[in-house]
């Protein structure tokens, strides 16, 4: 055999580089009209939505940051993020990753692809990278579009944080981008689960609904009174934990844990999908997914990962129970009240006052003396007291709290009317939204419950 022949033969039997496969997968994904429609929607719809809502007189006050949409362009992207974390991001991962393997089964193109690429491993890599690219493009589109829409419609004003502290436009920009970036981690976890479903279920389009189904189950789970170590071990927790970035100091602990959990799931699901894909016999024309074996090969390892994660979180944090108690609510409500009182003072054109001068404190009780003052519920009642500016007297105001199991709560002002009892405050220029009427904030579930 001649040297030339050897050279030709060696070159011809080499697998196609991953970058060529990646390009091929991108072409196939971008040729699908649902993907094109999703990209168009993600890059256009948020801008239109934020601009339209921000200009309305009635704002979505029951939505996180919704009440601030007319005052700063940075609130709109956070409203969109909160909505996206509920449904949009899991559905987008379903659309992209949930079908990327199963589609080849339905089209009968596996053999054709294998002959051209000559490496199942590279096919897997190319598909993962291509779906990742499209998902990042979709998430980036949502974020950038919402930001552009908010800034164009309302402007680059300071943002009121969840505990009432003010973020300068620069701080708001950085924190909003960080919040969107942190939502990528659970999105990747859902995408990896979609990949796994797509590999495991063969030509069945059921892989498409698996991330959406998982999102639904996890949302239901987040509503249940789970122990905090289980709650933060769920891969959807990072979809909630970004809210902690908008308190002062930022509640980074739950966010870091949420991101780590999401990335661990993304890695585990990807490895399982890879192993399942590599063990497949592509010459078997009757192959139709792993069927019941998927339970053993995919679901059980992921359940084991959840158990291990719960164990690790329980051992490295001092959190216990629901993570919600009286001390945390006392501290959180007093802080938010002080920040928002300063804002109300400014609106009423009264002399400026600092949080230190106010010396605000809160005393919360839950459901009377027969109920332990821990855990979520809508039966929390708090009395906030503060030092009245320019006086030796102490003011007090009452709030009724509806505390969610995930730490987010809404405190409804219950009087006195001139402080927190009415949704407007009367100024020289007319009525303006009363920042103390409703306080929408969150507690850090992972801080020790006994402190305070």
């Amino acid at each position, binding site marked *: 055999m001649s040297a030339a022949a050897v050279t030709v033969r060696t070159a*011809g039997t080499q697998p196609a580089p991953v970058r*060529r496969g990646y390009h091929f997968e991108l072409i*196939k994904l971008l040729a699908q009209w649902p993907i094109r429609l999703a990209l168009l929607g993600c890059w256009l719809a948020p801008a239109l939505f934020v601009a339209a809502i921000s200009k309305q007189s009635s704002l979505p006050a029951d939505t996180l940051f919704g009440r601030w949409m007319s005052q700063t362009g940075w609130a709109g992207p956070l409203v969109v993020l909160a909505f996206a974390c509920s449904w949009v991001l899991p559905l987008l991962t379903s659309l992209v990753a949930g079908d990327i393997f199963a589609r080849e089964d339905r*089209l009968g193109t596996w*053999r054709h692809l294998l002959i*051209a*690429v*000559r490496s199942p491993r590279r096919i897997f890599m190319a598909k993962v990278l291509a779906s990742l690219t499209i998902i990042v493009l979709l998430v980036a589109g949502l974020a950038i579009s919402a930001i552009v829409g908010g800034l164009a419609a309302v402007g680059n004003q300071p943002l009121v944080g969840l505990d009432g502290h003010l973020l300068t436009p620069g701080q708001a920009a950085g924190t909003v981008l960080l919040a969107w970036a942190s939502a990528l981690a659970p999105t990747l976890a859902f995408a990896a689960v979609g990949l796994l479903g797509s590999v495991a279920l063969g030509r069945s389009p059921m892989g498409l609904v698996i991330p959406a189904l998982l999102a639904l189950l996890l949302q239901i789970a987040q509503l249940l009174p789970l122990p905090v170590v289980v709650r933060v071990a769920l891969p959807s927790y990072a979809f909630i934990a970004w809210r902690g970035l908008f308190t002062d100091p930022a509640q980074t602990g739950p966010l870091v844990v949420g991101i780590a959990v999401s990335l661990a799931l993304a890695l585990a699901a990807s490895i399982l999908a890879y192993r399942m894909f590599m063990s497949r016999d*592509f010459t078997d*024309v009757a192959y139709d997914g792993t069927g019941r074996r998927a339970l053993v090969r995919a679901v059980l390892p992921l359940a084991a990962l959840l158990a291990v994660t719960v164990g690790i979180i329980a051992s490295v944090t001092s959190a216990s129970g629901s993570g919600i108690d009286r001390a945390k609510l006392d501290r959180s409500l007093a802080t938010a009240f002080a920040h928002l009182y300063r804002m109300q003072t400014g609106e009423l054109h009264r002399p400026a006052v600092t949080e230190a001068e106010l010396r605000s404190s809160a005393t919360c009780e839950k459901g009377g003396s027969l109920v332990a003052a821990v855990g979520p519920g809508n039966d929390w009642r708090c009395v906030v007291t503060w030092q009245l500016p320019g006086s030796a007297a102490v003011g007090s105001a009452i709030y009724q709290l509806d505390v969610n199991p995930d730490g987010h709560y809404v405190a409804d002002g219950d009087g006195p009317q001139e402080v927190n009892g009415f949704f407007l405050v009367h100024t020289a220029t007319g009525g303006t939204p009363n920042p103390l009427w409703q306080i929408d904030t969150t507690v850090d579930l992972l801080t020790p419950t006994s402190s305070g």
Partner: protein
Amino acid sequence: MSITERATDGTSIAHSDAVRTPPAPLENGPHDTLAVRACGIRKFFGDVVALDGVDLDIAAGEIHGLVGPNGAGKTTLLGLLLGLAQPDGGDLEIFGSPVRRALAVPPGVAGFVDGPGLYPSLTARQNLAALARLRGDGADGIGDALEEVGLSDVADDRVRGFSLGMRQRLGLAAALLAKPRLLVLDEPANGLDPAGTRHVHRVLTDLAGCGVSIVMSSHRMDDLAALCSEVTLLATGRVIFSGSVTKLAADTAELDYRLRTSDPAAARRIAAETPELCILPGERLLDRRDAEALLVRAAAPTLDDLVARLVGAGVGVRELAPVVAPLEAAFLALTAAATGASEDEGL
């Protein structure tokens, strides 16, 4: 220069020699005239024996047909030639190189099994361009490959709207793009209209003329009879016949023929007098319009004798044709025998 004709599905069929440049032959050592040499190939899927000691030799420039009933192992064998899997036993050499693992066949092998792998959301041109780029080839030959299979007019249409025949032709174009020396085709004539079939036959014949070896499976005996110089008959994973088409047809001693003459009554009388010829009850096989036709069963020499007698008696012979094509008859006879033997073994 190209000649264009119109297929019934609306696509134009052009004949050009643009992509028929045969690839440079490689030196293959002692088997330099063989594109494929398979010896005792065995392949299992769990407990199922898909191939059981299959031998196959395919020479350069040969069009080799694979025939067999469903489940005979044709697609499995073609998959091995494309490198989709490795044999569980036996030796397989392609262009003289042993194939010992999956996806490691030497360059120059192209084709498809279980239908051409095409993406319906891409156009015909995009399908080929993406494939060419994946292989690291340029897009130079795409137009020629599309013209070669008669899909130039629909090159920018999405494959979603293509008929089965058009998809088959596009699959062939994808294989031609790789400038193969061994073309492996699974049912390439599936869904083709007569013009498309004729055109694909011409393409394959021209490729073979340029030294490209072609191995194809088909259930259409007319395709195989028209194209293949050699055929291999598979049944339950075993080779039950391998050789030339002529030999296969000759292996079937007697066939049923339809005889139409100017004088049916005289023809029936003469046929009855002809030795070693059997007149069959034709009602079951001949429709009413053929009420005057005669159905006879005989070997070729006896037929010659019958024709001589008819002509001698002044009876005009208007038609003498096999009811079932010789190749098909041979196929049916051999596969029935093989299946029977296999069942006996099972018992």
